[in-house]
């Protein structure tokens, strides 16, 4: 299926294409639909050359063009809340947020799902590499990464192939780059069996004046490709791997679909690029990710004035046998493309040489509005770049609420048998705490460096990761990612809002003020109207909730076709929230560390078990409705948590999410090495108290001296607050019902993943 393997003895130049209108081209194998191919011939007013076809096919793939999702994603812009914080919005490599004191922060989450299933180590590693380059391309120094992950059933043999490889790949790449890993997620569910989700988030910091955009302007300016040599990696990877459901046919022989990452090269690329930025040497810059040079050249040209000329022969190759089409499509990692004025060219190349980074002038910005590419002196591409990069196809895919949705929602988890005795209650607490999704994740997170750079204030297992960005003023940012596919399956609109609400709450629990959002929307095939409905509902839900909470979506990523045959994964919107904290020394950790401090529950608890961890662990059940979304309550709770942190009224805070109150209290106790005595509040039964997953809740530890001030503040602001116990001893005791030694809880939580994977 490589374009060259078709009988085309002669170089397919623009001239040749014009003269041979009837030559058949493999557009279908390249993933293009008939009408898409016809549009290309209309745009060009002739048939495309092989090279042009290669470019259009990768750039018009689902992965690069967002053709199925675009019409829905628009809402993120249309409904974006007014925010002074947004410096760069959706559409650039990543959004940029003002965090004060002249600093700007850029962050984004992206998927590398399909490659990570085929080759877990390299797939995950290059996923980290790709997102880091996105952040770098904005002008920022990357300062931390996170990794929201979803795998099939924890005890499934294939999970034992995929998980260790993915974790080693994320660690292998991120650790070697010197970026602390400050959080993420690990979720097991058999719906991800053939479609694990490997999402990666990177956050970077810069000064306002350092923001760089991906555009090529100024005729005569040099286009410089720098970083690794170009090899045959991942050719067709974008269209075949990321956009179509797996099948083995049509992969080019001898052209690996798998890309291999070289984190050392990327580290050099980062340092070299930052030095280049510091000297103000670039006019525009773009990373090379999916679709490689096709993407970088067409996007740079399209976002700029339009004209660019590239001599493909100058591209440094790792494999001399590559055809020009393959060079254009190659996804070799660790490459960047910069636009540089002629005066700055020499200094640019000098800095690259200092860092041992290969840099080559491959072309220049031209007058006019055509992207022209030459090979062996002949022209093989002559296209309007906008048609490649920004004016791809847009689909209004049909969507319809699936007919099973009603039955699923009617299957209420509230009707499941509940524990009747104190012993049953106790046993179910231990089962919950030891279940793979709630269990301690340190077997995984211990494989990640959380200390490097020396600015990590909070990292896993805290609610959010926190990074100090100014060592003198103690300004910092906090980040959390969340997504609950079970909730989203029950109600995609609410599910997306719950993902946002949880991440927002996690950030607030650390004491930081939530500012902005990134998201990775992982769904099944958009060609299935039911999946498309889930997608439409989730995006609508997320956009609405972002509007209400005042946190704009700044960027993200869509991953479709996560399905095996007819069966799609649970709709899984993963949401990352970024918050700012003026003084990181005021952060609120999650650990209960002071005996005698009081434990308060913030928020209201109702009987809400649909999609809950309890229903999954104890009954293997998914049905009913997810917990009610209450964004006004989330907002109030966040304000309370932030004020309490700023004014030193709480020593610990931990948000409540899956697993409910008992899970949160267990985590805070285990982390602090102290037990707790809990009392069931009036009006609640012990089961609901322990396991309900009502939202907008958190537990806090309040020093006795602050008790009045804290509860007064809550009452004054109408924040529901209930005293539920005291930190004490070495067991968690539910008064009058049961006590579980802390050691037993710790052991139950820590044993699970080690037993499965160590």
């Amino acid at each position, binding site marked *: 299926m490589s374009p060259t393997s078709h009988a085309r003895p002669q170089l397919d130049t623009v001239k040749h294409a014009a003269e041979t209108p009837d030559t058949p081209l493999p557009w279908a194998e390249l993933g293009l639909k008939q009408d898409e191919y016809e549009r290309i011939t209309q745009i060009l007013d002739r048939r495309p050359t092989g090279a042009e076809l290669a470019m259009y096919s990768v750039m018009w793939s689902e992965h690069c063009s967002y053709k199925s999702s675009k019409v829905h994603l628009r809402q993120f812009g249309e409904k974006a809340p007014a925010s002074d914080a947004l410096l760069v919005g959706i559409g650039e490599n990543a959004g940029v947020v003002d965090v004060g004191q002249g600093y700007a922060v850029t962050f984004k989450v992206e998927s590398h799902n399909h490659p990570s299933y085929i080759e877990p180590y390299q797939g995950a590693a290059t996923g980290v590499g790709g997102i880091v380059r996105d952040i770098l391309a904005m002008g920022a120094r990357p300062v931390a990464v996170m990794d929201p992950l979803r795998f099939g059933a924890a005890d499934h043999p294939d999970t034992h192939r995929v998980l260790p490889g993915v974790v080693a790949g994320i660690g292998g790449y991120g*650790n070697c780059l010197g970026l602390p890993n400050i959080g993420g997620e690990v979720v097991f569910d058999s719906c991800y069996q053939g479609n694990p989700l490997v999402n990666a988030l990177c956050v970077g910091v810069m000064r306002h004046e350092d923001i760089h955009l991906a555009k090529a302007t100024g005729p005569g300016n040099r286009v410089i490709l720098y970083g690794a040599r170009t090899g045959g990696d991942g050719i067709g990877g974008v269209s075949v791997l990321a956009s179509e459901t797996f099948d083995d046919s049509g992969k080019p022989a001898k052209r690996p679909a798998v890309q291999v990452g070289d984190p050392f*090269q990327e580290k050099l690329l980062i340092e070299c690029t930052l030095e280049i930025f510091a000297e103000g040497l670039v006019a525009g810059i773009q990373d090379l990710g999916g679709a490689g040079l096709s993407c970088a050249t067409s996007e740079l040209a399209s976002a700029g004035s339009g004209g660019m000329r590239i001599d493909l022969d100058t591209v440094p190759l790792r494999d001399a046998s590559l055809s020009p089409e393959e060079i254009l499509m190659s996804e070799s990692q660790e490459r960047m493309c910069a636009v540089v004025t002629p005066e700055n060219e020499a200094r640019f190349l000098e800095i690259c040489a200092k860092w041992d980074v290969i840099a080559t002038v491959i072309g220049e910005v031209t007058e006019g509005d055509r992207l022209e590419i030459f090979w062996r002196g002949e022209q093989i591409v002559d296209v309007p770049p906008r048609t490649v990069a920004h004016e791809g196809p847009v689909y209004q895919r049909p969507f319809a609420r699936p007919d099973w949705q009603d039955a699923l929602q009617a299957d209420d988890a509230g009707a499941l048998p509940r524990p009747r005795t104190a012993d049953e209650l106790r046993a179910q607490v231990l089962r919950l705490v030891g279940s793979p999704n709630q269990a301690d994740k340190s077997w995984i997170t211990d494989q990640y460096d959380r200390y*490097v750079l020396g600015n990590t204030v909070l990292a896993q297992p805290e609610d959010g990761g926190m990074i100090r960005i100014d060592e003198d003023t103690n300004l910092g940012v906090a980040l959390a990612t969340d997504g609950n596919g079970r909730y989203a399956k029950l109600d995609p609109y609410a599910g997306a809002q719950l993902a946002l609400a949880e991440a927002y709450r996690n950030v607030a629990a650390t004491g930081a003020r939530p500012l902005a959002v990134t998201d990775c929307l992982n769904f099944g095939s958009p060609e299935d109207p039911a999946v498309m409905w889930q997608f439409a509902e989730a995006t609508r839900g997320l956009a609405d909730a972002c509007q209400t909470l005042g946190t704009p979506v700044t960027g993200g990523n869509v991953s479709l076709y996560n399905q095996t045959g007819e069966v799609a994964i649970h709709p899984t919107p993963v949401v990352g929230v970024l918050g700012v904290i003026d003084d990181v020394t005021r952060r609120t950790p999650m650990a209960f560390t002071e005996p005698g401090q009081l434990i308060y529950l913030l928020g209201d608890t109702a009987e809400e078990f649909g999609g809950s961890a309890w229903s999954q662990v104890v009954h293997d059940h998914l049905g009913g409705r997810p917990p009610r979304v209450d964004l006004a309550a989330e907002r109030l709770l966040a304000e309370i948590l932030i004020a309490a942190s700023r004014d030193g009224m709480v020593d610990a805070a931990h948000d409540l999410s899956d697993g409910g109150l008992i899970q949160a209290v267990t985590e805070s106790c285990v982390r602090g090495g102290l037990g707790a005595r809990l009392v069931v509040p009036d009006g609640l039964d012990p089961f609901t108290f322990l396991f309900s997953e009502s939202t907008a809740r958190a537990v806090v530890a309040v020093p006795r001296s602050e008790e009045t001030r804290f509860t007064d503040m809550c009452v004054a602001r109408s924040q529901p607050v209930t005293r539920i116990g005291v930190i004490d001893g070495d067991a968690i005791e539910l008064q009058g019902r049961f006590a579980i030694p802390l050691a037993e809880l710790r052991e139950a939580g820590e044993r699970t993943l080690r037993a499965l994977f160590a």
Partner: protein
Amino acid sequence: MTTRVGVVTFPGSLDDRDAARAVKLAGAEPVALWHGDKDLRQVDAVILPGGFSYGDYLRCGAIARFSPVMETIVEQARAGLPVLGICNGFQVLCESHLLPGALTRNDHLHFICRDQRLRVENADTAWTADFAAGQEITVPLKNGEGGYVADERTLDELEAEGRVVFRYLDVNPNGSRRDIAGITNAAGNVVGLMPHPEHAVEALTGPTTDGLGFFTSVLRKLVA
């Protein structure tokens, strides 16, 4: 006159900024040294920081050992210049034969990042004088190839001469022989260890501030 402590940056060094911060917090002046430069810029001591020099390809520290800056460091270390190798820096010191033995793949085959308790066995080196012998400290540990190995004769010699400077407590995180976390040369000016004292210098970001002692030790030694 402030004491100048050089921190070498190899391509792929990661904890160089952390080491420089630690030097500063201890009251000395950090001086950036570049791998391609033989000149040590008149520093009074040198730190080889953690990271993945040259990607740790081939073997950890194997390629860095041949960099121009190492030529001068090896020479001056033999003449008494205090040198501290942390993690990757320790690996470079072993590859350079300034310290005996080698560091191999962790016995459990995973990278591991944890807060590690250590015992200071030798408080007489240039980098440990501010500790008391037998003192227990906690600093982060993070490595994939931190298993210390040497032949029995070398191990016995290290023990006999008091050149085991740190030993792992609670758990041996990587299969190091005799729980060895760090060693010194015979003169006591060159020290290498796998754990990262530079990550334990601020209460805000480290598990403890036990790591500061390394950097104040060398300062005191140099001023004295």
